[in-house]
């Protein structure tokens, strides 16, 4: 990408050629798009708050029920606002951190590509459209994780994320197709409105598990969690955006969107609750074990995703409200904290907790932002996080089946969250000043404005929850529950059990924080005892897959042409023979056609050619005899009135003879020992194939021909396609797409042959 600014400072011409320096002014442009979109989505708020649902439809493939339909309701608007709002912050931020990066513009393109895919995903109202955008987010995530493509670790992580989420995506596609056939439509809003249609359908269980496979891989639930921490190889703004605030929540979005159609069964309740709780607790314990701030945050993101899944398992309004509120809270504080960790990294050159301390003096603004975000994360009043946490406890207690289980999982996870908040936001900024690789300095305005803004929003919404409760949370809860719901957020809920649990959480959390050094070394010891981590298992799985592929390639692709032909023809003979026998399709014609001398001559020609081919000692003679067989076939076409086919056959036969003789004449003389076992086997196979094909042809000819298609072409050829030669009209007009496919194959075959010939290295004299 050229940047006109450089022409002005021509004094430093050398650096221009090696490094493109996007000025900060240009970086604003990348933030402008998401910002404008965010404003656009804000204008929808009043309509959504009053309970409307806006639908936009464009036809795509209407004959298959696939349409570009988009729906804006409380749920999709909440997501759209988070995507565009945080997108703007991240774009601004990365215009500083990636300024001067050789591929800055590529980065901006990937980022916007991702943003539009994600927007399409949450706004889509058609299963197939949703799936297309779903896959696009996987692809853009792959590109963004692997953005530093010179690092092997980044490439591995990118591929791992792509394979895990892509594999889930395939399951999702299958689930969507089943769901579409069960509901009779691909339109999401119709499926959701269909009530118990899916739940009572015979295919409910497979649909459920397939959709869940998609959601769980995308949202990194245990046991698919391992790709998310690895995805932290991406630049920090990307981690903040994709792997915390937006993309990983796509699975949550899907569960929420499908809630009215799929939830309410025991299967849904138990699977989501158990996997969600397991993910939340497992991840928050592992978060304590990390020493890299970014990784610690990555594990807390996992915890958040688990919590959201757990609450979506329930059908209680309060649990859903807890999920929606926590979703918003989490996006705010987590994006802010990721960006803050990025600032710490940018300012000091390290993200290791052991090396960080006492930075508050050098980075006062960042410290304030960190404190605000961390307090929201820990759930202290009066931040929005507090409301979210109270709601979580209320929701947990409202879960009908196992309130104790869900509530204790929530308390444990939240207490660990308090500890991690302390590690990430307190420890680096307060206490003793520690030596860092770089002298710490405050980040530029464009970097800290985002985190500060997000943290302040967390505070403002905490103090005035009415700002979002009516306009966003309630419509979103309504959309998830599938029926109108009333939700009121409030900072003070009175003295009740949730508040008690909050106090317990803080006490536990502070204890965890104080003891986190010991806990960490304990966890490290436990980890060493474990046979293998999920990440290592993944590697073993991939190795096994590659080994299996190599093995079956060795077996099936031996590279011996003779064996290939043998397998192909044996399959033909056995498959055809068995089918004929089992179905009883073999027929014997009641009436034989009248053979004239003309026919008999052609048959004699073909048979004679075949015999000659098999028994001739010279290769050249064998090739020519083979040509005779081909010419005989061409004659059959001539006799039965297919001149086009006959000409083509004749020409192809000529070419084949030339081609084969060019190659074969260089080969040694044929060895033809009739007593050799291989040849007897070949002869038997050839006779078997001939017999099976003959029987098939005779049986086919004995069944009456359906001439309707032929009649259609005969009728339409001249008046509609202006051609009297039906064969050609079919080729170039009626079936032009097929022909195009065929010539594409021909061209690609030529390309392949070209590469094979050149690949031998002695093809062409210079």
């Amino acid at each position, binding site marked *: 990408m050229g940047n006109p600014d450089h022409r002005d400072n021509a004094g430093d011409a050398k650096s221009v050629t090696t490094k493109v320096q996007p000025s900060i002014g240009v970086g604003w442009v990348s933030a402008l798009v998401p910002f404008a979109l965010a404003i656009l989505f804000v204008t929808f708020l009043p309509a959504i708050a009053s309970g409307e649902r806006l639908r936009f439809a464009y036809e795509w493939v209407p004959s298959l029920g696939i349409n570009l339909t988009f729906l804006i309701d409380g749920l999709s608007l909440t997501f759209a606002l988070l995507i565009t709002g945080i997108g703007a912050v991240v774009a601004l931020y990365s215009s500083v951190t990636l300024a001067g990066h050789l591929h800055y513009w590529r980065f901006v393109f990937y980022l916007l590509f991702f943003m539009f895919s994600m927007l399409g995903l949450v706004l889509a109202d058609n299963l197939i459209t949703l799936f297309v955008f779903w896959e696009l987010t996987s692809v853009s995530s792959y590109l963004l994780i692997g953005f530093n493509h010179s690092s092997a670790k980044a490439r591995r992580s990118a591929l791992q994320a792509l394979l895990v989420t892509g594999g889930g995506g395939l399951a999702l596609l299958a689930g969507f197709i089943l769901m579409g056939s069960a509901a009779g439509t691909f339109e999401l809003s119709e499926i959701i409105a269909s009530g118990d249609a899916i739940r009572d359908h015979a295919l409910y269980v497979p649909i459920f598990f397939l959709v869940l496979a998609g959601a769980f891989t995308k949202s990194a639930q245990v046991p698919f969690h391992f790709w998310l921490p690895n995805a932290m190889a991406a630049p920090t703004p990307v981690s903040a955006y994709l792997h915390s605030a937006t993309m990983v929540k796509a699975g949550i979005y899907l569960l929420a969107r499908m809630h009215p159609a799929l939830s309410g069964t025991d299967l849904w309740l138990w699977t989501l609750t158990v996997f969600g709780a397991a993910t939340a607790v497992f991840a928050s314990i592992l978060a304590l074990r990390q020493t890299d701030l970014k990784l610690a945050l990555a594990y807390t993101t996992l915890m958040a995703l688990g919590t959201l899944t757990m609450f979506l398992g329930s059908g209680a309004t309060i649990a859903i409200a807890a999920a929606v509120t926590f979703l918003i809270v989490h996006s705010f504080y987590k994006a802010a904290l990721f960006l803050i960790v990025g600032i710490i990294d940018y300012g000091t050159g390290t993200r290791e907790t052991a090396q960080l301390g006492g930075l508050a003096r050098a980075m006062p603004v960042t410290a304030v932002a960190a404190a605000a975000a961390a307090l929201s994360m820990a759930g202290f009043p009066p931040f929005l996080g507090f409301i979210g946490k109270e709601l979580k406890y209320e929701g947990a207690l409202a879960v009908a089946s196992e309130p104790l289980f869900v509530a204790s999982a929530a308390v444990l996870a939240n207490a660990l969250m308090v500890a991690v908040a302390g590690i990430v936001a307190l420890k680096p900024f307060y206490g003793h000043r520690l030596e860092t690789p770089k002298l710490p300095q405050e980040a530029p305005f464009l970097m800290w404005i985002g985190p500060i803004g997000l943290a302040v929003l967390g505070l403002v919404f905490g103090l005035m929850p009415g700002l979002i409760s009516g306009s966003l949370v309630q419509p979103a809860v309504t959309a998830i529950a599938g029926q109108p719901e009333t939700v009121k957020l409030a900072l003070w809920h009175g003295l009740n059990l949730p508040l008690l649990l909050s106090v317990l959480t803080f006490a536990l959390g502070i204890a965890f924080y104080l003891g986190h050094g010991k806990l960490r070394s304990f966890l490290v010891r436990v980890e060493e005892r474990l046979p293998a981590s999920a990440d290592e298992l993944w590697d073993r799985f991939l190795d096994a897959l590659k080994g299996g592929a190599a093995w079956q390639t060795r077996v099936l692709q031996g590279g011996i042409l003779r064996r290939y032909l043998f397998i192909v023809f044996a399959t033909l003979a056995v498959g055809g023979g068995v089918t004929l026998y089992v179905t009883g399709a073999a027929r014997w014609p009641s009436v034989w056609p009248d053979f004239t001398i003309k026919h008999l001559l052609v048959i004699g020609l073909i048979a004679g050619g075949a015999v000659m081919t098999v028994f001739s000692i010279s290769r050249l003679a064998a090739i020519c005899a083979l040509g005779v067989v081909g010419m005989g076939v061409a004659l059959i076409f001539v006799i039965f009135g297919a*001149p*086009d086919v006959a*000409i*083509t056959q004749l*020409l*192809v036969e*000529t*070419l084949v003879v*030339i*081609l084969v003789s*060019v*190659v074969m004449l*260089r080969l040694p003389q044929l060895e033809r020992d009739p007593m050799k076992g291989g040849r007897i086997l070949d002869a038997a196979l050839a006779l078997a194939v001939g017999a099976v094909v003959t029987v098939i042809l005779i049986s086919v000819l004995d069944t009456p021909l359906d001439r309707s298609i032929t009649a259609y072409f005969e009728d339409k050829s001249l008046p509609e*396609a*202006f*051609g*009297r*030669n039906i*064969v*050609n*009209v079919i*080729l*170039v*007009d009626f079936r*032009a*797409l097929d*022909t*195009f496919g065929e*010539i*594409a194959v*021909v*061209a690609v*075959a*030529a*390309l392949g*042959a*070209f590469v094979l*010939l*050149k690949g*031998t290295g*002695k*093809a*062409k*004299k210079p």
Partner: protein
Amino acid sequence: MNSLILSAATRILVGLMLLFSVYMLIRGHNEPGGGFIGGLLATIGIVLYAISHGVAAAREALRLDPLSIAMGGLGMALFAGIMAVFFNDAFFSGQWAFPFAEGDDKGFPISTVLLFDIGVYLVVVGAVLSIVLGLEEEV
């Protein structure tokens, strides 16, 4: 191959075969013929030339690399298909124009269908030649 008779005859034959191949291509819509047949004919003509005069001479006479011819033909066929979209028709439906048409006389019909068939012709020529010429150089 060093044969005076072959090379002398080839000079006339190649021209005739190429001309005939174009004739087959154009008449294909109403009589036996078409892009496949025309393309095969032209290919055989050029292969004949390569046998009598050598592959290098044949390549030189072609001027373009056979693979480029094939890809060009593929592009042309695709373009013919896309043309239909500009006339607000389904992908690959033939578009016709009849300049100089008077009454029953269709005048001088031109169509995307012919363009498509020329594309087929070029793909066949390019693809088969790139394989045959490559093989002849190889052995």
